[in-house]
């Protein structure tokens, strides 16, 4: 097994992670702050005999991914918030046709054209479906460059396992920062994940009945059946795929809840306050959909309160409230449009909460 330690940006780490996961086609369209991703793929994919396409639009890119996924390949696209809005049509079709694909969103400030600063304002869009119809994408949220690399293999594995689109939610800060990571060779990755057979894929009907990829079902009751199949799949995902990291949950009186870049910042806060003997903990969701509800079902007797910290005005907050079910107070600290809650702001908020 070949392992290399390299210094790399979050965007490039995700690109290398996709390559090491056996991604065969990447289609993208320029948008800041994810351009390093596309440029990395433009350089590396052809060297490996794989497919890179600069598409004429986000719509074209996601539909190229649809075509590659329908013909059995591991395929992906990446973009940032306004571009991801354009991809929603394609993501809904991927979900309806039950095709595996990976979509990376390096989130920036919104709404509208917004700006190119980091943000977490696309949480609702990612976790609630985003496009039309009753569907969910699996949503993974790395919080370091190393996790950005690692989560790509996981994203492709989950996409293939459940035949569903998987969204990786990064942000402008995580995408741009550099950290050392350990990379593994493609051979290792692909062998490890033991790629699933795709007997449903379009390969030409040699020696078998024709395959059809579709999401249109006009006959009475048939579309409802497809929806029930999807719902069953989503329930299985919710039961099996919740992931989170918990710090000091056993004795914490105030539990911070944060993902992505905010998970890093809140981790520093937890460390600083623990050093001072404060009973602070952290729930760091790694899957945003399914939301890790099980992290909130600890000892029912111990009183605690939650403080959700986001680079938005309270999106994951709703999932935390749903998970807590009104049993404990849920507080919130958030900034958006390029504003990033600082350690000091978080500590001040905690001090205020401790006094009341």
């Amino acid at each position, binding site marked *: 097994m070949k392992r290399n330690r390299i210094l790399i940006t979050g965007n490039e780490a995700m690109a290398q992670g996709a390559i090491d996961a056996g991604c065969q086609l990447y289609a993208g369209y320029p948008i800041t702050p994810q351009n390093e991703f596309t440029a990395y793929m433009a350089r590396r994919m052809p060297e490996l005999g794989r497919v890179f396409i600069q598409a004429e639009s986000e719509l074209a890119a996601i539909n190229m991914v649809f075509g590659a996924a329908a013909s059995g390949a591991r395929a992906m696209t990446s973009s940032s918030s306004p571009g991801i809005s354009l991809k929603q049509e394609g993501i809904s079709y991927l979900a309806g046709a039950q095709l595996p694909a990976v979509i990376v969103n390096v989130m920036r400030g919104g709404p509208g054209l917004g700006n190119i600063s980091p943000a977490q304002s696309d949480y609702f869009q990612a976790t609630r479906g985003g496009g039309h119809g009753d569907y969910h994408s699996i949503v993974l949220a790395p919080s370091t460059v190393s996790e950005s690399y690692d989560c790509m293999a996981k994203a492709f594995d989950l996409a293939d396992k459940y035949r569903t689109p998987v969204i990786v939610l990064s942000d402008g800060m995580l995408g741009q920062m550099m950290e050392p990571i350990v990379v593994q060779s493609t051979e290792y990755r692909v062998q490890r994940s033991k790629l699933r057979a795709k007997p449903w894929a379009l390969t*030409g*009907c040699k020696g078998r009945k024709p395959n059809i990829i579709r999401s249109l079902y006009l006959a009475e009751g048939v579309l409802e059946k497809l929806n029930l199949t999807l719902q069953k799949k989503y329930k299985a995902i919710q039961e099996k795929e919740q992931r989170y990291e918990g710090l000091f949950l056993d004795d914490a009186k105030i539990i911070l809840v944060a993902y992505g870049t905010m998970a890093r910042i809140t981790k520093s806060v937890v460390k600083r306050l623990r050093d001072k003997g404060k009973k602070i903990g952290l729930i760091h969701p790694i899957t945003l959909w399914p939301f890790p509800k099980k992290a909130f079902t600890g000892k029912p007797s111990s009183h605690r309160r939650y403080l959700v910290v986001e680079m938005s005005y309270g999106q994951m907050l709703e999932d935390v409230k749903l998970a807590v079910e009104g049993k404990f107070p849920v507080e919130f600290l958030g900034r958006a449009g390029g504003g990033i809650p600082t350690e000091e702001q978080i500590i001040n908020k905690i001090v205020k909460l401790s006094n009341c």
Partner: protein
Amino acid sequence: MEKIFSHPKSLRKVSTHYCPGCGHGIAHRLIAEVIDELEIRERIIAVAPVGCAVLAYDYWDFDCTEAAHGRALSVATGMKRIRPENIIFTYQGDGDLAAIGTNETIHTANRGENLTVIFINNAVYGMTGGQMAPTTLLGQKTATTPAGRKVASEGYPLKISELLAQLPAVKFIERTSLHSPQEVIKTKRAIKEAFENQINQIGFSMVEVLSPCPTYWNLSPKQALDWIRDVMVKEFPLGRIK
């Protein structure tokens, strides 16, 4: 005795949902015959459009996918890049290819993707109830041009084939019609060439087929064929464009 005519292997033995006098049934059959003759059925992947022909996969007997409205050529691009050994074609109407999908059409053609495109031009949106298409003729009455298409408000019929012919990566474009047996035979010949081009890796090839829609032209099936011959071909002249 030699059998010289039978049901194509690539066409399922089912009745279609198309209206009486519609051209889609003929076009589907021509494609199926060509695929049989070229012995490529087991290599074919078809991309069905959004429009009346979305259910084409119920009639063709080979691998097919749907695509979102207008995105057929992007889907086909993704497939062909992954599976260059397969023969991949899109079957698209005028709204799909020349309105909502114009961007995808022009850029796929400009990249010179080695694909075959069958473009059904019936000058109207059929599936949604006969609205104006980019190819609707001036003066033609539709659900959304009740007084007839006017230059001042709707512009001219879009000649996407002539437009694509300007692109250096486009290798073959021919406009044909289904209004008479002779023209049907010419259409089949053009479709065959467009598939042979892909097999021989020549590049982007498209056949624009003028096809009757009696229902939304408010004509009988016979009148619809005559309307193509007498009116439509004046705006959309037949023959090899590139």
